[in-house]
C-alpha cells in the first residue's frame, strides 16, 4: 500500500466528490465545441449562475436536513417577493441599496416566521404549509410588482456582475458564505441540533435539544437566503420579474440532492452544493452547445435528478 492511498481513500468517501467529478466531465465535454469562447469563459458563466443556485440551496439544505417531511416549497415565491419589494423601494438609487437589503431581509423574516407558524399551529406537514403560503406570497408579489419596470441601482448591478481575474466577485462572496455555513453546520450548537433532529427528532428532544427553536430558525434562514437570492438576482438581471423565482424550486432541491446531502435528513455537506450547481449549469451549457433545444434540456435535467436520487437511495420517504 502506498502512502498516497489513505488520503485518496478518504477523498473517495466524500459525498460531494461525485458532483464535482460530474461538473468537470461535463465541462471537458463542452469546451471542444465552444468556438470563439474559451474554456475559461464557460467556467466564468457557470460560476456566475451557479452562485444563485447555491444561495437558495444552502437554505433548502438546512431544511431538508431536518428530516423526513421537511422541505421549503415557498422559495420561488419568496425570491420573487423580495426581488420586487427591494427593486421598488430602491427605485434605482444607489443611496437606497441598504434600505432595499433590509426590506428584502424583512420579507424573508416574515415569510419564514409565517411558514413555521403554519407548521406548528395547524400541525400540517411542512410541504403543505410552505405550499399554501407560497400561493399567498406569490399573489402579494404579483399585486405589488405589477407593471414593475424599474432598473436596479447601478452600483448594486455593477457589484453583482463584477469580476476579478475572470472570477465573479459574487461567486467569491458566496464561496466564503458556503464555507461559513459549513462551520455553522458542523461546529455550532445550532448546526448540531439540525443534524440531530434530522436523524431522530424524538431522540433529539430527549437529549435536551431545543427542537422547536431550531426548526423555526431553519425555516426563517431558508426564507432569508431565498430573499437574498431575490435581492441579488433582481440586481443582476436588470430588475425584478414575476417569474424570476420559477426555476429555483427544482434547482434548490436538485443541488441539495445531487450534492450528496441525504434527502432522508441528518446528513449534509456544503461543498456538494457548489459541485451540483456547477454541474446543473454546465449540463445546460453543454446541451446548448450541442444545439439541442429546450425540450431535450428539460428531459435530461429531470432524468438526471431521478437517476441521482435512485442511485443514492432513500432511508425514509420525505413525507
Amino acid at each position, binding site marked *: 500500500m502506498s502512502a498516497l492511498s489513505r488520503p485518496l481513500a478518504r477523498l473517495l468517501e466524500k459525498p460531494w466528490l461525485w458532483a464535482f467529478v460530474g461538473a468537470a466531465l461535463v465541462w471537458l465535454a463542452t469546451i471542444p465545441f465552444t468556438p470563439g469562447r474559451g474554456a475559461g469563459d464557460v467556467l466564468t458563466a457557470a460560476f456566475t449562475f451557479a452562485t444563485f443556485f447555491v444561495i437558495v440551496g444552502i437554505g433548502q439544505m438546512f431544511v431538508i436536513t431536518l428530516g*423526513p417531511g421537511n*422541505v421549503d416549497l415557498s422559495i420561488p415565491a419568496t425570491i420573487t417577493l423580495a426581488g420586487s419589494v427591494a427593486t421598488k423601494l430602491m427605485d434605482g438609487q444607489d443611496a437606497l441599496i441598504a434600505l432595499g437589503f433590509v426590506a428584502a431581509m424583512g420579507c424573508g423574516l416574515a415569510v419564514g416566521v409565517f411558514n413555521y407558524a*403554519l407548521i406548528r*399551529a*395547524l*400541525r*400540517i*406537514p411542512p*410541504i*403543505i404549509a410552505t*405550499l*399554501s*403560503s*407560497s*400561493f*399567498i406570497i*406569490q*399573489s*402579494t408579489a*404579483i*399585486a405589488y410588482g*405589477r407593471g414593475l419596470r424599474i432598473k436596479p441601482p447601478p452600483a448594486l448591478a455593477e457589484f453583482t456582475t463584477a469580476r476579478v481575474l475572470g472570477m465573479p466577485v459574487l461567486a467569491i462572496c458566496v464561496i466564503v458564505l458556503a464555507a461559513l455555513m459549513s462551520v455553522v453546520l458542523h461546529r455550532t450548537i445550532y448546526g448540531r441540533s439540525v443534524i440531530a433532529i434530522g436523524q431522530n427528532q424524538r431522540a433529539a428532544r430527549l437529549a435536551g435539544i431545543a427542537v422547536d427553536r431550531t426548526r423555526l430558525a431553519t425555516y426563517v434562514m431558508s426564507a432569508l437566503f431565498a430573499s437574498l437570492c431575490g435581492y441579488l438576482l433582481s440586481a443582476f438581471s436588470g430588475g425584478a420579474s414575476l417569474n424570476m423565482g420559477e426555476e429555483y*424550486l*427544482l434547482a434548490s*432541491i*436538485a443541488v441539495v*440532492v445531487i450534492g450528496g446531502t441525504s*434527502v*432522508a435528513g441528518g446528513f449534509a455537506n456544503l461543498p456538494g452544493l457548489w459541485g451540483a450547481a456547477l454541474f446543473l449549469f454546465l449540463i445546460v451549457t453543454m446541451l446548448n452547445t450541442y444545439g439541442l*433545444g*429546450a*425540450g*431535450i*434540456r*428539460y*428531459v*435530461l*435535467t*429531470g*432524468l*438526471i*435528478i*431521478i437517476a441521482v*436520487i*435512485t442511485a443514492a*437511495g*432513500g*432511508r*425514509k*420517504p*420525505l*413525507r
Partner: protein
Amino acid sequence: MTSTLLAPRTLRAILPAVSLALLLAAIFWLQPRTMSYTGLNLMLNLAIPIALATIAQMFVLCVNELDLSIGAYVGYVACVTATWLVESPPLGIAALMAGILVYAGLGALIHLRNLPSIVVTLGMSFVWLGVAVLILPRPGGTSPEWIRWLMKLHTPVVPFPIIAATVIAIVVHVALMRTAYGSILRGAGGNPRAIERAGWSLLKIKVVMFALAGVFGMLAGMALIGLTTSGDANIAARYTLLSIAGAILGGCEFVGGRVSPAGAVIGAITLTLAGSFLSFLRISPDWQIGATGAILILVLALRALINRAEERQ
C-alpha cells in the same frame, strides 16, 4: 353530550360540502344571472379537468405520497391529444398508454428504492414538460372531434359539467370505497405493515395507485383539450397546486389513507368557483392564487380546530 351532528367526524365530513354551498350562495347573491343553465355551464366547465387531476392526486395521496408532476403530465397529455391523437390516432394512443406505464413504473421505483416521492415527481415534471415541448414547441393543434363534442355536450335541464362531475365522483367512489380490493388499496395508506402482514403486496398496490393517477391525469388532459381546442406544454402548470389544494379542501388527509373521492371533486369545484367569485367581487386576478392559498389555510385551520376539540373530548 354533544349531538351527533356536531361530532368532530361529521363536522369534518360535511366541511367541504358546506364550503361549496356557501360559496355558491354568495355567487348567486352577487350575480343572480349565474343561476341559470348557461351561467353554471360557463362557470363549471373548467372544473371537469381540474376535478379529474384532483382525483389523480388523491390516488397518490392515499398511499402517503405526493405527485408534484401532475400538472406537467396533464400538459403532456394535452399536447399529445392536440397533435398525435388527431393526426395519427394509433401513435397518440400509444403515447397516452406509455404515460400510464411510466406512472406505474414510478410507483414501483418509489416503493422498491424507498425514494421520496416529491423529489422523483419534481424530476418527472421536467421530463413531461420537456417531452411536451418536443411534441408541440409552440401553442397550437386542435381537439379530436369526439372529445370536443363530448365536452360541449348540451344535456337537457342539468348542465353537462354537473353531470360529469357527479359521474366522476360516483365511479371513483364505488371503485375505491365500495369494492373489496379498494379497501386493500386504502388500507395500505392507513397501516402498510398490517396490509403486508395479511399477505398483500405493497408493490402491487403502489403500482396500481400510481397507474390510476396516470389514467385520471390522462382524462384530465383530454378533457382540457376538449374545452380549449388547442394545446400548449404549459397549459396545465397550475394543476399541480390546484390538485393538491382540491384534494385537501375535499377532506383528504396527507397521510393515513383517509381520502374522499366525492370530497375531492367538491374541492376542485370549490377552487374553480372561487376564481369566479373573486372576479364578481372585482378583485384583481393577481389575487387569484393568493385566494387559493388563503382558502387552503382557512380550511386547514378549521380542521385543526375540530381535531383539537376532538382530542379534548
